[in-house]
């Protein structure tokens, strides 16, 4: 089986305090992996490392067999899509937002437009092209961010608590899209979440994080109990 | 979006290019504000400019600064009216080829009521003595200009050091000082040219005139090329010859403000 990520002895810290310490983590390709843990357990930090936004102080990450170094950072970054908890949309139209990542990669304007339109349709936002992106609702914004990431055809899709701030309907829609991406297109997905139902519905594998480390069971120590876990949806 | 960016860049480039392009030959002359204000230069310069295909840049500042610009070599020729300062300028080696050009005169103006009673005075010095005795409000230029230097010289000759509330040092140009004198109903020393130019607006009668001590001679000096090799000495010399020659002198004599002649040509034939 192909490994999307092979991580060994990874240590990452912001300014002196170690935020993340992972001895070994293997994420198989084509799977949906859920990342679970209380706030501050290092979920976001791990995702940022997987997105190659930051470089760990020690340790290695192999992405589909390719070792991450300082030189291939931008290349690897372009192969991974990441959705932030609260998406930042540019002060432009929805279409322009989705097109930007393509233009950045040198794809000509017309082709970018085509791809962007198709992706918006994929996430159910046809007709939203000319809307001012910042005027959309939470659920719509998250879908624009998703379209923006998908248009770039990443090999891996990372989602940081994507349904946290959303209403039930929008949350379900996002989840449907993720399932479709995985089942239909074999995309590897890593999704950080508090929601037990999401885990149930989507995940092939669960990773528990506590204080920056992987643990087998979150309920074993009180400090790792996630008060938000098992929260039923609004 | 791309189109407007392009237009902006083009516009910006134009502005920058235009501002950098100025390749005509230019003769730089420093003179006093009162000289430029008189309007003489607008008739005196054009014939020279046309005949020699140059532009004369006139920088009008106070006498002190005009000479300083000559010292620094920032101008090619200096045209002021402060004989002692001019002589020093030449003696110090900053200027060469000094020539007399013309003279106008100064007058003492003041309130109609003439509280200090200078109207009948026989000389400017006497008038100044009366002003100091009567402690009448007097506005001084206070800016080391030609006018200011003459005024200080008169005080000196009268043996008085003017001090006190009545002696107001304005630090401004002649027009502003005249206005101030009018507003405060005070006395002041002014060149006739500025006075005539303001005649309608400022109702301060001339209380003393004609004294030789009030004559205001103008001199023109080329900046010494030995001190500043980059000055346009030849062009400056040409200009000096023009101004002191028959054509320039005639223009000076014919120049009238409100029908009255302001300047009297003084250049000796050389």
């Amino acid at each position, binding site marked *: 089986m192909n490994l999307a990520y092979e991580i060994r002895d990874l240590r990452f810290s912001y300014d002196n305090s170690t935020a993340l310490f992972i001895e070994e983590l293997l994420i198989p390709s084509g799977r949906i992996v859920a990342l679970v843990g209380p706030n501050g357990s290092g979920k976001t930090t791990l995702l940022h490392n997987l*997105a190659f*936004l930051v470089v760990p102080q020690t340790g290695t990450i192999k992405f589909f067999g390719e070792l991450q170094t300082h030189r291939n950072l*931008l290349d690897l*970054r*372009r192969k*991974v*899509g*990441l959705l*932030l908890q*609260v*998406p*930042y949309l*540019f*002060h432009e139209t929805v279409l322009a937002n989705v097109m*930007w*990542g393509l233009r*950045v*990669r040198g794809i000509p304007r017309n082709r970018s437009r085509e791809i962007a339109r198709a992706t918006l349709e994929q996430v159910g936002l046809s007709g939203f092209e000319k809307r001012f992106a910042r005027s959309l609702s939470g659920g719509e914004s998250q879908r624009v961010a998703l379209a*923006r*990431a998908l248009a*770039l055809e990443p090999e891996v899709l990372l989602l940081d608590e994507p349904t946290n701030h959303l209403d039930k309907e929008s949350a379900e829609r996002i989840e449907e899209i993720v399932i479709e991406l995985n089942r239909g297109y074999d995309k590897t997905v890593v999704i950080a979440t508090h929601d037990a139902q999401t885990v149930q519905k989507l995940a092939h594998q669960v990773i528990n994080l506590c204080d920056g480390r992987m643990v087998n069971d979150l309920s074993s120590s009180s400090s790792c109990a996630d008060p938000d876990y098992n929260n039923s949806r609004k | *979006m791309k189109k*407007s960016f392009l237009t902006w860049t083009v516009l*910006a480039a134009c*502005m*920058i290019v*235009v*501002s*950098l392009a*100025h390749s005509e030959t*230019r003769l*730089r002359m420093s003179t006093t*504000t009162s000289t*430029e*204000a008189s309007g003489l230069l607008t008739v005196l310069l054009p014939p020279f400019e046309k005949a020699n295909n140059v*532009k004369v*840049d*006139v*920088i*009008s*500042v106070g006498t002190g600064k005009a000479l300083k610009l000559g010292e*620094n*070599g*920032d101008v090619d020729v200096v045209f002021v009216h402060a004989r002692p300062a001019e002589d020093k300028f030449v003696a110090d080696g900053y200027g060469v080829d000094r020539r007399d050009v013309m003279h106008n005169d100064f007058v003492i103006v003041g309130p109609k009521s003439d509280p200090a009673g200078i109207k009948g005075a026989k000389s400017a010095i006497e008038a100044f003595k009366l002003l100091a005795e009567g402690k009448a409000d007097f506005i001084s230029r206070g800016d080391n200009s030609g006018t200011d230097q003459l005024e200080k010289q008169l005080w000196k000759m009268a043996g008085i050091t003017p001090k006190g509330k009545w002696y107001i040092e304005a630090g*401004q*140009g*002649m*027009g*502003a000082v*005249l*206005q101030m004198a009018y507003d405060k109903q005070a006395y002041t020393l002014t060149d006739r040219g*500025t006075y005539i130019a*303001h005649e309608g*607006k*400022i109702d301060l009668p001339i209380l003393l005139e004609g004294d030789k001590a009030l004559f205001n001679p103008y001199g023109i000096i080329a900046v010494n090329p030995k001190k*500043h090799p*980059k*000055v346009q000495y030849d062009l400056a010399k040409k200009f000096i010859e023009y101004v002191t020659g028959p054509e320039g002198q005639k223009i000076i004599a014919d120049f009238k403000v409100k029908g009255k002649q302001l300047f009297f040509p003084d250049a000796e034939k050389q």
Partner: protein
Amino acid sequence: MDFLGKALWSALGLIVSLDPEVYFIVWTSLQVAGSATVLASIVGVPLGLLIALNRFRGKSAVLVVLNTLMALPTVVVGLLFYALLSRQGPLGDLGLLFTPSGITLGLFVLAVPTVVNLSLAAIQALDRNLFLTCKLLGASLSQEAVKIVKEARFAITAAVVVAFGRVISEVGIAMMLGGNIRGFTRTMTTAIALETAKGEFELGLALGTILLSVALAVNAFLFLLQRSGKQ
């Protein structure tokens, strides 16, 4: 009040009469102020970007200095550059003294701290997630820089407008470095100074009115441009 009324009327008269001297003075002002602002923006905005986004030793000192420079007294800049550009100064050979380019240089130096400081503030006010988003969408540093400036474009345009306002109303530098030469380096502000010194208050005020109108026109134009950009 009659005084002001007369001035407004003269201002109108000056504009309508198409007096070439007046138009040339206005053009000179626009030219030097415009060039200075454009150049200051080209240098200042990237500089503001660099300072805003990077951590480095002495950053706080730089910020304090920038703030101080925003209040630079113009006569100081004028004096300093006069000494530099004078024929016997180190840059005398450039022949910039008493030319419009000389004024532009002085105004440029005046405008840069304002542009840098306000651009910096504009960028620091941006949502941090913008920087993250640019990176995660795979942008290179320069692509990210352009995007950041675009996202902050309103505040940055405001910075440019402030700088323009500062330079077009400036008189000390224009006087010292330009020399107020008729038909060459006379700007609206130096013309006003001259007329006022001559006691021609009416004419001075009339020119002042024109100056205000020009500043208003430029600002209105930029505002409309911004608005059309929004839609």
